[in-house]
């Protein structure tokens, strides 16, 4: 049973209005295995899921489910064959109770006309005990956390007799502990013989959970195999199509001081932090959650100003008590949660790009439309935002491109100091490298770059100096000759 193939795709092609979303994809999923589907944003993962679930009919290629060739498959056929997709937004009903959310789809499938609330509760209780969930069945979904909403979605899939469960990027909104719990549930489903396909592009998570891996790139099948056949280098190569240069960042030595911070303190957050940055430096600030690493960035940008200490930017002592002080002193800041704090998701790239510098375009009581468009176009070109024009809403961009728009927003203010908190969270490998290249360029131009992150390999590779925080104190500033393992030890103070 272990090696029995449940789903087989061969040569799947699909194009939309001349754009080839899928150009010949093969995929094989066996019963009771956890299969990861990896690829950068826009590689065709979503289209492939839609082909498997019957939402899009492929232009060419064949789909076999359970050994049966499927022709003109509709969503209901796929569901009938036991294929259940859990989309990123879970497609649950916020206004209905947990029990009803779990049972409703099954009732629809049975084409029942009436609702028996006793059945609804029974079905929900059974499904929840199967996956080990313990949620009050009478609570409305709008009150649940993301992780519990996901659990409800999984329960609902189980009720519908799932043989293959497809999860589209299930970990993006979860905390590390919630991810652990999710993996436990997925493993228990695997024990029950359910095949699981997870769409993911985070290597460490794939290693934690996957039995096998298939990689797509630009809509084409690249490789597939046992997880043990992939090391990081091969994974990166297959994902991006080229070897990402793993050189550590090493700027030219300079004695031109950009930023000097002395004895910066903020009660309850951090104490007595001092450091100096020279031209070309990219300073990393790291530490565990709650160590004060993020708070330093917030203090320098005036979000939560420091109580005492000196900040000297380009030889001038400055005081930062508010965000407007920081902006007046030409400091830019990319927050950790760019979706809620850094971007207007429904506004255009242009609106976002000029958002922090709009005053500069105010001419005689009118906004200089041409100037704003030119500036946006320049940044699109300069930092390679993949967009046809400044017009599309930021929501339509991939994570990496959205992050570039945040960066463009601050670059358009000509900052002297640029602070980025978690600049590459949720960004895929290729775009990550591009963002780092942009930062290195800026540093060379004399802009101070501070990267706050807990992604140690990334820090070691891209910052020439790293400041380590522990319990609100700086425990050392080191250069990047350190390897990530010893850096990790420093973090916990071992």
């Amino acid at each position, binding site marked *: 049973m272990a090696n029995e193939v449940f789903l087989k795709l061969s040569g799947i092609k699909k194009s939309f209005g001349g754009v080839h979303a899928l150009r010949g994809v093969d995929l094989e999923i066996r019963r009771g295995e956890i299969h990861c589907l990896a690829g950068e944003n826009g590689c065709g993962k979503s289209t492939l899921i839609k082909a498997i679930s019957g939402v899009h009919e492929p232009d060419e290629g064949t789909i076999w489910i359970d050994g049966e060739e499927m022709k003109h498959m509709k*969503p*209901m056929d796929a*569901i009938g064959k036991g294929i259940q997709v859990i*989309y990123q*937004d*879970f*497609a*649950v*009903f*916020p*206004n*209905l109770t947990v029990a*009803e959310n779990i049972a*409703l*789809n099954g*009732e*629809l*499938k049975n084409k*029942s*006309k*009436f*609702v028996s*609330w006793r059945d609804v509760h029974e079905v929900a209780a059974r499904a929840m005990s199967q996956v080990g969930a313990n*949620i*009050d069945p009478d*609570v409305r979904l709008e*009150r*649940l*956390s993301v992780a*519990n909403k996901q659990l409800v979605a999984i329960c609902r899939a189980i009720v519908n007799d799932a043989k293959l469960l497809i999860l589209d990027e299930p970990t993006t909104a979860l905390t590390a502990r919630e991810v652990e719990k999710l993996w436990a549930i997925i493993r228990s489903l695997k024990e029950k013989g359910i095949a699981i396909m997870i769409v993911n592009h985070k290597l460490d998570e794939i290693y934690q959970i996957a039995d096998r891996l298939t990689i797509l790139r630009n809509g084409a099948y690249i490789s597939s195999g046992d997880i043990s056949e992939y090391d990081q280098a091969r994974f990166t190569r297959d994902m991006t199509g080229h070897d990402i240069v793993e050189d550590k960042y090493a700027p030219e030595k300079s004695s031109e001081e950009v930023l000097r911070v002395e004895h910066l303190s903020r009660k309850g957050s951090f104490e007595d932090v001092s450091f100096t940055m020279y031209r070309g430096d990219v300073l990393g600030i790291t530490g565990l959650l709650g160590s004060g690493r993020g708070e330093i960035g917030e203090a320098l940008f005036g979000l939560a100003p420091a109580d005492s200490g000196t900040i000297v930017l380009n030889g001038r002592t400055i005081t930062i008590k508010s965000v407007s002080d920081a902006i007046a002193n030409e400091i830019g800041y990319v927050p950790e949660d760019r979706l809620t704090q850094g971007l207007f998701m429904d506004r255009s790239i242009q609106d976002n790009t000029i958002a922090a510098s709009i005053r500069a375009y105010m001419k005689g009581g009118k906004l200089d439309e041409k100037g704003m468009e030119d500036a946006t176009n320049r940044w699109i070109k300069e930092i390679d935002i993949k967009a046809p024009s400044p017009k599309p809403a930021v929501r339509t961009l991939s994570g990496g491109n959205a992050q570039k728009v945040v960066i463009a927003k601050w670059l358009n203010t000509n900052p002297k100091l640029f602070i980025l908190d978690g600049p590459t969270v949720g960004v895929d490998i290729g775009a990550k490298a591009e963002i780092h290249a942009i930062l290195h360029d800026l540093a060379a131009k004399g802009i101070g770059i501070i990267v706050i992150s807990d992604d140690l390999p990334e820090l070691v590779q891209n910052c020439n100096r790293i400041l380590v925080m522990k319990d609100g104190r700086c425990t050392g500033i080191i250069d990047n000759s350190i390897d990530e393992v010893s850096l990790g030890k420093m973090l916990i103070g071992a």
Partner: protein
Amino acid sequence: MEKKQKLLLGLTSTPMILIYVMAVFCLIAALRQPAFLSPATLINLCRAGIFTMCFAICEMVVIISGGIDVSFPAIGCVAMYVPMWLYNHDMGVDSVFFFFGVAMLIGLVFGILNGVLVSFLKLPPLIATLATSSVASGGLIMLLGTREYTSLPPSLDALYSVNLITFTDPATGFKYPLTILILVPVFLCIIVALIMKYTMLGRGLYAIGGDKNAARVAGFNVIVLQFIAYIFCSVMASATAMIYTTLMHSSTTTALMGEEMIIIAACVVGGCRLTGGHGSVGGTILGVLLITLVRNNLNMLGIPTSWQTFAVGLVLLLGAVLSSIQARRIEKMGKI
């Protein structure tokens, strides 16, 4: 502890607060004016609430499905005027079935129009039904003029005289009849409540109101469900308009215009959310009761009737504040 919290939550829920407000209102009225406690008050209240109740149930179904319908007063006017016009131009038969049949047929036509605009053409429901409203109202005046029919045809007059019970005030000898048409909102409430709770049709309406996309993915036919909501609203509102004509002995082209806001208000006070997916027949009944009570019995509190609009405004404010407080409280309780 948890039980206590649940009890407290139940006692301070929106419906309970509405009940408290009504109780206080009645208590003050009864203290100031003992006549308030006479069955006559209840009968008057029922009579006054018939249309409001029926319209509110219609609107509630549309709001739950995630839409809104501001066209039902205009449609209702067409539905009450056209049959009377036909009858008075010797083009109709004198039968209750004719009058209600034509009215509901007119409702069906406009319901389909609303359904097409909202579910097929995907117009925003407010704009779509506003357009329908203008077309219906304007078209009626343009084509059939603006008369007022105040005499009922014999068949409707006969319907008007059927009473469930008649209360005779022992002191004054006044008669207070309760029309049999009160059964329409009663049965409407029961049937709609059962449908909303125990059928896939009802749950489907809640589902599309909660998340259209999720409903589509789950396999609900969103277009058909939206159609049903708008058609139900129009047809039922048209029948209600004919009841209005029967009870008020009046049919004009503008009799119901302006009702939409007070009806939507009653729904919202009763717990419907304008974003869709929330609301219940029970809550809507409470909302209608409160608004009818305030509209018709202010004088019992010793407040001049000229304050009516102001008082209704206060009720609305109460409803809005209540739902906002409730939402914030739930938010504060945190995610689970």
